[in-house]
């Protein structure tokens, strides 16, 4: 979130470089610098940084717990990670 704008509770949000005005009527607690989830032109939630950090810490711990990773299979039967296409409405 970059800035607030009148007349209806609105703000400017950056989506990976693209700036757009979105309604903040449903996330009155949002502050500048927050990450918000935007859908159809309105912010529907403020991303909880603490919860995100907790989950990532759990995942990292999962990595440390097991050295027998079959990384060689990545790209074979593994999950493909592709570039982000048009998911701007998701975050």
């Amino acid at each position, binding site marked *: 979130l970059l800035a607030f704008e009148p007349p*209806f509770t609105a703000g400017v949000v950056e*989506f*990976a470089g693209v700036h757009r005005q*979105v*309604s903040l*009527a*449903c*996330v*009155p607690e949002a502050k500048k610098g927050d*990450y918000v*989830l935007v*859908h*159809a*032109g*309105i912010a*529907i*939630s403020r*991303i*909880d*940084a603490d*919860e*995100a950090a*907790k*989950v*990532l810490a759990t*995942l990292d711990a*999962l*990595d440390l717990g*097991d050295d027998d*990773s*079959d*990384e060689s*299979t*990545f790209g074979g*039967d*593994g*999950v*493909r*990670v*592709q570039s*982000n296409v*048009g*998911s701007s409405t*998701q*975050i």
Partner: protein
Amino acid sequence: MKYVDEYRRPEHCQRLLQEIRQTATRPWTLMEVCGGQTHGLLRYGIDAALENVVRLIHGPGCPVCVTPLESIDLAIELARRPAVTVSSFGDMLRVPGSRENLLQARAEGGNVEIVYSPLDAVRYAEEHADRQVVFFAVGFETTAPATALAVHQASKLGLTNFSLLVSHVRVQPAMEMLVESEDNCVQGFLAAGHVCTVAGYDSYERFVEKYKLPVIVTGFEPVDLLMGIQECVQQLERGEAEVVNCYSRSVLAPGNKQALAIMEDVYEVCDRPWRGLGVVPNGGFRLRSKWAQFDAERRFKRHALPAHECAECRSGDVLTGRIRPTECREFGMRCTPNSPLGAPMVSAEGACAAYYRYAPLNGAVQAN
């Protein structure tokens, strides 16, 4: 992008896949009811990576796909009237009506505007006082607050040239209908993360109590999807059924209170026909009578001819998870994204479109 890239790390995906493979002693059948998740599962190859480990079937998670044919026909009819402009999301334009779609109506002189948000439709109405602007409102609980806000804004602006064709749907009643059906095979649900962002997941407690099926609130990135699947499989292996939130960075148990308050003010729950499913009790929202001045169905008299569904399209079976898109004989033959027989092949959230786009990468088409 932050909060996206971290949830796509290959090493995390690999660990989660490994855990799921080690945990699952049989191919549990899991259903997601969200087109964004359907596409995520296919796009990242998760369905192929877990083939024979879990059975991933897809529910009616594409709001465009379940929008009733009668509503589409009415939107087309309105778009063809000289003084009316119909606005909607881009996805809606190529969804087949009985005889044509909105894009064809536009090509023949109809007035159709694509908007990114219902609030843009309000702005369009403000700037075009000489036109009657109708917003064709489709979507789950995720989108419903944006439409409700549009009603509030139009009211504050005193617009008399703005109205809505409301076709919003509610996910949980459809899940109940699927589970109640005689041939139900769903053993666990991945609940749609963004629907829960708005609606919360408190309401799933009763669902889980009644049907004894795990419901896991799940996000959209590959790590999110795999965490949801892993939690669901773990519960099934333990013989448990609980509501668990695996998308905690966005979802709170009670949902978004502001959004729910605006929705409560603008809508009331109604029975709603879902394309491919039939009437879902309590399956939709309609405008409350105090907002009747914004109801397009009251403002305009309907002349539409009886609705006519394509006989070859098996979207009903696809939307209920009874068949995979590739099991339809018209898939990729007479039915492609360029000339779709049914809505699931059109929409960016439709299951048929997901298989058409990604299945060749996964080898699923060869299995057809």
